[in-house]
């Protein structure tokens, strides 16, 4: 069963790479119509990024593009031309939402600002995603995932204390920014339904990432302590006989651990209160490591989980794919594609009434030019031919 929560919502995406495309991908799964505007000839840069099937670059076989753009329609358009800008304005005039992450400079250059786009459509919601956001002293700075992780203080708490800070995965903050864009956009759309007023939503990837940082910012604010990268009191990486597991000591986990490790550690004055345990974290780690080393990972995890202790495996990507939980829940789905063929993809991380949203494939470059330009915007075949000939489409 599908639940098209956003049925009837019309979205234009002027997106590239991760954040804006991820935002609108979620919307297609919920029944919105998303028209993705791509550069003629090349398309979204992720078409050239890969990973590629058979290791060969191909606009229609880039794994990341295929994942990020499920369910969308694709049109090609050169928005640097006057005609291209005119067409965007026409599309915006009959849409509910426009999501973009092209950057302030491109918006100014092309005149595709919120003011210009909402003139003919006061209920239009425009959602902009950028590293630093569209206002503030750094608004004209160029940014990327690495700079978002740096300025948000994420990198300060990431890595080996004796070495340079290190980036977290490849693009996590970009995905999180896409999620905030999703939520901000639907909030603004909901408001527009109530009072007819559209607006501009401004999402900063750096801010989005900063909100995911557990306790560091709060700890500094309340106790003036700077948290630096290195071992963490909240999550222990501990060796078993055949690999590593992670243990979390949040909440009342300590009491469960103690049940397993015995009375000595329970009565140790170093570990009496939570504050003591935080201060003597290193000692706890040494004792836990000595203890887990006696077991295989499976023994440690099964024994711990049986009494509700948060202890678990460290999986690589193949392990995750084959994990019983993901297999049972059908987190990965297969989608067929005319060029890429049958491929597996991560699904959406939620269920509605216990069922997954069905996703449909990503579009070919410009696949919906005909449909959008003639049926929706009313251009004739000859106009289209001219636009193709001049490279505008």
């Amino acid at each position, binding site marked *: 069963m599908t639940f098209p929560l956003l049925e009837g919502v019309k979205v234009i995406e002027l997106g590239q790479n991760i954040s804006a495309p991820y935002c609108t991908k*979620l919307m297609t799964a919920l029944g919105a119509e998303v028209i993705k505007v791509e550069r003629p000839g090349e398309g979204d840069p992720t078409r050239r990024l890969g990973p*590629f*099937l058979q290791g060969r670059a191909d606009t229609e076989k880039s*794994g*990341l593009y295929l994942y990020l753009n499920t369910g969308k329609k694709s049109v090609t358009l050169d928005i640097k031309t006057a005609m291209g800008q005119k067409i965007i304005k026409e599309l915006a005039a009959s849409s509910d939402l426009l999501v973009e992450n092209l950057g302030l400079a491109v918006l100014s250059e092309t005149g595709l600002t919120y003011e210009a786009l909402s003139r003919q459509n006061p209920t239009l919601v425009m959602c902009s995603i950028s590293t630093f956001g569209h206002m503030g*002293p750094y608004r004209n700075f*160029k*940014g990327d995932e*690495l700079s978002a992780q*740096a*300025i948000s*203080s994420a*990198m300060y708490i*990431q890595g080996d204390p004796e*070495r*340079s800070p*290190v*980036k*977290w*995965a*490849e*693009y*996590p903050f970009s995905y999180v920014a896409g999620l905030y864009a999703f*939520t901000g956009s*639907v*909030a603004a759309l*909901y408001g527009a*339904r109530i*009072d007819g007023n559209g607006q501009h*939503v401004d*999402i*900063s990837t750096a*801010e989005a990432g900063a*909100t995911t940082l557990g306790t*560091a*910012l*709060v700890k*500094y*604010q*309340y*106790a003036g302590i*700077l*948290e630096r990268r290195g071992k963490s009191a*909240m*999550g222990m990486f501990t060796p078993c006989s055949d690999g590593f597991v*992670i243990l*979390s000591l949040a909440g009342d986990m300590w009491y469960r651990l103690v049940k397993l490790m015995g009375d000595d550690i329970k009565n140790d004055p170093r570990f009496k209160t939570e504050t003591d345990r*935080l201060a003597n974290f290193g000692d706890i780690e040494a004792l836990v490591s000595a203890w887990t080393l006696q077991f295989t990972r499976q023994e440690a995890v099964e024994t711990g989980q049986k009494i*509700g202790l*948060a202890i678990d495996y460290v999986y690589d*990507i193949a392990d995750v794919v084959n994990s019983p*939980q*993901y297999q*049972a829940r059908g987190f990965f789905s297969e989608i067929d594609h005319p060029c890429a063929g049958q*491929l597996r*993809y991560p699904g959406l*991380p*939620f*269920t*509605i009434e216990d069922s997954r949203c069905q996703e449909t494939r990503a579009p070919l470059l410009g696949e919906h030019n005909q449909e959008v330009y003639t049926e929706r915007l009313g251009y004739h075949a000859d106009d289209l031919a001219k636009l193709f000939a001049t490279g505008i489409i």
Partner: protein
Amino acid sequence: MLPLDGIRVLDMGRFWAGPELGVTLGYLGAEVVKIESCSNPDPLRLFARGIYPKGEAGEESWNRSGLVNERNRNKYGIALQIDHPRGREIFKRLLAKADVLCENLSKEGARKLGLNEAELKQANQALLWISLRSRGNTGPESDRVSFGPTLSGLSGILSVTGYENEMYQYVVPGMPDVVAATLAAGLVIAGLFYRKRTGKGLHIDISQLEAASSMVAEAFMEYFVTGNVPGPKGNRSRLAAPQGCYRCRGDDEWVTISVSSDEEWRSFCSAIGQPELVDDPRFADVLSRHKNHNELDAIIEGVTARLSSYEAMHKFQAAGVVAAPVANQAQVFNDPHFAERDFFHAHQQPDVGIFKHRRPALRFSGFDLSVRLPAPRLGEHNSLILERWLGLSAKEIKALEDDKVIGTRPDV
């Protein structure tokens, strides 16, 4: 005007994910009521990790937890014993008046409180029930216990984090709780669209683990497309060179730099006062710069070592090159950019004082996001909410207090 004005939310969240969803909905205008109980308050009231004002737990320590303050602003708070028959009855009546129920209880916890399809639909046909289970509502491991650090291992995130080709043995700084909660907030609103059309409620369940895996989707696509199991890539990039994290003048001060095009490379060479590098064959294009990255890094650090991290950012940004300081927590709070964007909201709490907490990463031209309510003390609004939502009289409320169905002190 705020979009969720008039929407009533019951927030049974604990720790982070559930409460964060409540904060976001509260910021967007909803009337959010945090439901705890004296026998089982939010664990962060009791295990506050030492995060108290000036590190001092104080008299009513359960009302002074910094983490509770951050994750429960813009909410009312009641402490109701749902396991008491009269508490259960009140809970059902509250459900009937609510638009949204959000929680991140374990499956067992939810079961114990009678949160199942049948009971909830009976109480309220149009209820939007959002659960944020750590591994989802179904599956062989749905009863297992997890927190952020263990989810980072299970999701695959840890396996693609860290220095190139080395196993990463620390916990990642970012937790999936906020990721799941932010998505959940959007899904609540999408659910409200659906409810407006159909009059029906829904159960939406977000798996924090799947939300975490979604943050490394490109790693899964690499595996599905090539069969290779990806590992950590460090600070460098396939597409940009040079890219990295470079030491600056101060103690443990660093700046990140990414040069993504030959044009930026030329600008960068001028900015570091070494325009002749443009003609250096070792660095002629991205491929060569990659090949000779170590040498290039040494040259760059020769320059950045003389600058503060913020000086380096301004200098390179002025040349059109992506650069940002590796800020520490103090620097984030003092950054004029975050200040102008009103990223931190100060709010006053009785017995705690004034502290700044970051807002959700949302800025709207048409909505003014602010802290209308400080995080509630345990059971602070028992009377207010029971009177406002259910019309209970002062006498009825006093009887509930006397029978310990509601209260304000932990009874653990």
